[in-house]
């Protein structure tokens, strides 16, 4: 692979492994590992979306799990009504409709809450994003029709022409393609003129404003893009799990998403993917060893924060670069 930089070679290598290994699992009938990989890829999409605002925008959202929930319910609710009737205007198994609903609903929610959240700074921002996520959490808890606290079983997955998501390998490949597109999009955005302004506002907001940029609008735009992308991840997660509950939006889930980004390395293309991969695999591995797996897992978290600055991608890229 002459002609690629070291970090580009690593990116291509990791993404190739991520594509080949699950196909291999499928071929050999290891369905469980295939579904583990699918979960990993979907969470990686969410982490990539969070990285756009957290890593490149410096906006520490502690409520990103809300978008996963919104996306998942945007699949679950139309499917529920398609099966059990009611709310005809929304009842549908059409995948395009559900995906569009997920993206638009997440974007609208991001626009409204972002407009308020971005007025605050620092810890206030962290906490108000969390507060809005908790509101969504309790909102879905309160709706009896969709199971409240008990959650909602999705009986039929999103339907697309030619593509059948009921087949685990198809769902994986679709998720993988979405992940690659999401990574490409985030990479394009951060290197564009828009991305330059976003990163400059993270590094020095006063300076960026003085240059004539309304950084509030740039941040809000990034916030909406990130929310919409995470809503898409939620729609995929709903299709994967075929079960959704408000639990998906708990503040600890938002914390996990943040952890994936940090673990892999903020403001890097591959970081969120590596973070999600290690998170999912280590959690699965430890939880099979002992029911007390949260103890070593928590210690790992603390150790990463204390000692591994720059995350895994920093380590992978080596000291030289």
């Amino acid at each position, binding site marked *: 692979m002459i002609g690629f930089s070291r970090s580009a070679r690593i990116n291509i290598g990791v993404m190739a492994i991520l594509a080949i290994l699950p196909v291999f699992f499928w071929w050999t009938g290891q369905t469980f590992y295939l579904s583990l990989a699918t979960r990993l890829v979907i969470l990686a999409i969410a982490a990539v979306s969070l990285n756009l605002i957290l890593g490149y925008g410096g906006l520490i959202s502690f409520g990103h799990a809300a978008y996963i929930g919104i996306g998942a319910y945007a699949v679950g609710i139309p499917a529920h009504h398609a099966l059990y009737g009611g709310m005809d205007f929304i009842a549908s198994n059409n995948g395009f409709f559900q995906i569009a609903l997920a993206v638009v609903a997440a974007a609208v929610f991001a626009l409204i809450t972002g407009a308020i959240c971005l007025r605050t700074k620092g810890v206030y921002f962290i*906490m108000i994003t969390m507060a809005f996520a908790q*509101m969504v959490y309790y909102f879905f808890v309160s709706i009896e029709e969709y199971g409240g606290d008990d959650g909602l079983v999705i009986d039929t997955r999103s339907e697309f022409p030619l593509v059948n998501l009921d087949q685990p390998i198809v769902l994986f490949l679709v998720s993988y393609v979405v992940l690659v597109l999401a990574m490409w999009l985030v990479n394009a955005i951060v290197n564009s003129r828009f991305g330059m302004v976003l990163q400059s506002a993270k590094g020095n907001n006063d300076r960026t404003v003085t240059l004539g940029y309304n950084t509030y609008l740039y941040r809000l735009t990034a916030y909406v893009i990130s929310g919409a992308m995470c809503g898409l991840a939620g729609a995929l997660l709903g299709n994967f799990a075929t079960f959704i509950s408000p639990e998906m939006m708990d503040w*600890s889930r938002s914390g996990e998403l943040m952890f994936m980004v940090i673990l892999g390395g903020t403001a890097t293309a591959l970081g969120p993917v590596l973070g999600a991969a290690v998170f999912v695999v280590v959690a699965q591995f430890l939880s099979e060893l002992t029911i007390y797996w949260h103890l070593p897992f*928590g210690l790992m978290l603390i150790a990463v924060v204390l000692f591994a600055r720059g995350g895994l991608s920093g380590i992978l890229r080596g000291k030289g670069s």
Partner: protein
Amino acid sequence: MFVLKSGIPPLDTTLLFVQTLNGVQLGLLLFLVASGLTLVFGILDFVNLAHGSLYMLGAFICASLTFLVGNFLLAVLIALPITGVLGYLIERFVARPLYARDHLDHVLGTFGLILVLDTSVHLIWGPAGIAVPLPAWLEGQVGLFGDVVVPSFRLLIIAAGLAAAAGLFWLVNYTRLGMLIRAGASNRTMVSALGIDIQSLFALVFALGAMLAGLAGMLIAPITEASIGMGNNIIITAFVVIIVGGIGSMKGAFFAALLIGLIDTLGRAFLDDFFKLFMSSDAAENSAPALSAMLIYILMAVVLSVRPQGLFPPKVR
């Protein structure tokens, strides 16, 4: 406009009074947790998600000691310094290395600490949780006036909460330590310029916060039992309290805690009856508890959108 399904039920003033008292009790417990949080946050600029774990540890240690020494109140007195020492250890080994980092690292490091402490409690005390026995004179009820009867232990919580609040106000406003704490909340470099060992001041503040959170846990344990994860329920609410009150403001924490305690309790008490006015009884009973839990977050969003620094921001930051 909505359609009234039934007449408005007459408001029972006795019930309202009792519920207000319940709200005040919850508010004071919240204040105990939030005051430590706001101190640590305001002075150390450290986001401690694991503050709720100290609340849990206080409850478990006190519960064990109650069985050991045979008396709840004595157990509280012994458990307090132990919780303080635990707070100090957390400060020394997890918090201190993170002071220089940004809030993101604080959130993640202490998030990890929650997992570690919850699991450790599971390993040490088992999954069951511990019911804490009270002395006989605290198990009963007190008649206040008319037909208002309240559990005597809840009155004790209110008294202890008020006493702790008063003690804190005295400490912060009338002592040298308090002067340093106030100075630290508004201007950290000034404190170090005064030649104060800022490291020990930080450790002291952290331990004090731990003791306050621990005390709250000890006081609630005889009511709800000491249980794993009990801290995770209250920590988010405590954060809402200090954000609404203004980070670093003791006064803000106090008023916001009472406000949120009352909103939560009165919401749970009356929201379903209110909803029944315009929706079916079943729907009201299902949605009211969740929506009353939502109220405090709505309050926070409204406060922050109007006053991004909270209700009582410390004067200089």
